[in-house]
């Protein structure tokens, strides 16, 4: 059953200290900024954040980090021109970092959502990111064993949602949202539009409502 929350703060209610939080978005596209802001207000701390980046400038994920709420970041690319909040915390030893190749990040969450216990992946074989991991040659190719990444909560951005929780996305803002929705115990989506039941063509639904627990309408600058 999907709850239509009235405010972003209501949508993030109950997120516990110590949670693993999957945060969608690639750059600003698909970034659930209102939900992150609400999470800062909500107060949960000691979080493990899984996201492609580790925050930009002073807003969104960077603000959550700056507020001292994040114990560990699992991401593919923390270092950016404006990732100074993360950079400072990391250099000061105040935050843990697990760097994961971008496709493995997606596939490990996909495995979590799909009930796969582990998978042999060719990415990163022979590199420092495979160190300490089991490797195996299958059919003449080398693979590294990768484990699922489960979230307690996923915060994602989508274009439109209906009262069943079905979601559609816009262009490359789709990115991590559909995967994270499957990988978390509780998925919370901020959507630019809430539409009536039956208004989404069943053929074009990208995230079926079964994966979505709460949605909240947040006006966004893109259509």
């Amino acid at each position: 059953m999907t709850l239509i929350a009235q405010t972003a703060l209501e949508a993030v209610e109950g997120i516990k200290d110590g949670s693993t939080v999957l945060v969608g978005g690639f750059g600003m596209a698909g970034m659930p900024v209102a939900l992150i802001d609400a999470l800062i207000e909500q107060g949960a701390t000691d979080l493990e954040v899984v996201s492609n980046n580790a925050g930009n400038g002073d807003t969104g994920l960077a603000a959550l980090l700056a507020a001292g709420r994040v114990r560990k970041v699992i991401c593919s690319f923390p270092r950016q021109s404006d990732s100074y909040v993360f950079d400072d915390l990391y250099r000061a030893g105040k935050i843990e970092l697990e760097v994961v190749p971008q496709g493995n990040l997606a596939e490990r969450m996909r495995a979590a959502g799909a009930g796969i216990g582990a998978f042999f992946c060719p990415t990163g074989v022979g590199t420092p990111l495979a160190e300490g991991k089991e490797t195996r040659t299958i059919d003449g190719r080398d693979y590294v064993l990768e484990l699922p990444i489960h979230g307690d909560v996923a915060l994602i951005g989508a274009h439109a949602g209906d009262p069943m929780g079905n979601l559609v996305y816009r262009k490359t803002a789709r990115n991590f949202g559909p995967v994270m929705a499957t990988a978390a115990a509780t998925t919370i989506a901020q959507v630019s539009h809430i539409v009536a039941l039956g208004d989404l063509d069943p053929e074009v639904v990208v995230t079926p409502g079964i994966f979505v627990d709460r949605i909240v309408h947040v006006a966004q600058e893109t259509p």
Partner: protein
Amino acid sequence: MTITVTLDRTIEHLDRGPLTRDEMAQAVARDIPDGSFVNLGIGQPTQVGDHLSPDSGIVLHTENGMLGMGPAATGDDIDTDLTNAGKVPVTELPGASYFHHADSFAMMRGGHLDVCVLGAFQVSERGDLANWHTGAPDAIPAVGGAMDLAIGAKDVFVMMSLFAKDGAPKLVRKCTYPLTGLACVSRVYTEHATFLVGGSGVTVVETFGTTVDELAGRLDLELGLIGS
């Protein structure tokens, strides 16, 4: 995909070179077969797109979830929901499609892309790639899609300057920087020459403003010649 190499062309071009970055991008573009599915890495490789003919049937993939990516967007065409992997606003061509990150990287990892063009710190003679980490102890590690791209296309082309700022060759016997992928690069495009790597070692395809002998003197490598 088989890369066809024209064997009757001159290897040493002494009348031009070293190539500009734009000329290097042009050299890469010329070697991408019509109808290929191609991923252009962030930075310099993106410039290759400027030299692909619209009627080549080449389709660009961006790992953040799109096939059929068009040129960079300007003015009113800028849409913050539509960017390339470098987070630069881009456009959509007819016949495009969108998909999520797991599907996008499955497409790469599954070997469905024909060519990927990447930058590099170092490439080894057997095609090992180092392009994600300088190994500096104080650097914050960040890999992005580099390792996925390295193993995720039938052919990986590298575009890079042949020498580092300190003059050290970047095409080497063995990479000293942390690796991105093993034996994954097939071609290396530099301002001084284009090389095939992997398999039987390093083969010079063309030189620009230098002779093969001069190059051999500056690289600690056995150089074969194309067609020989």
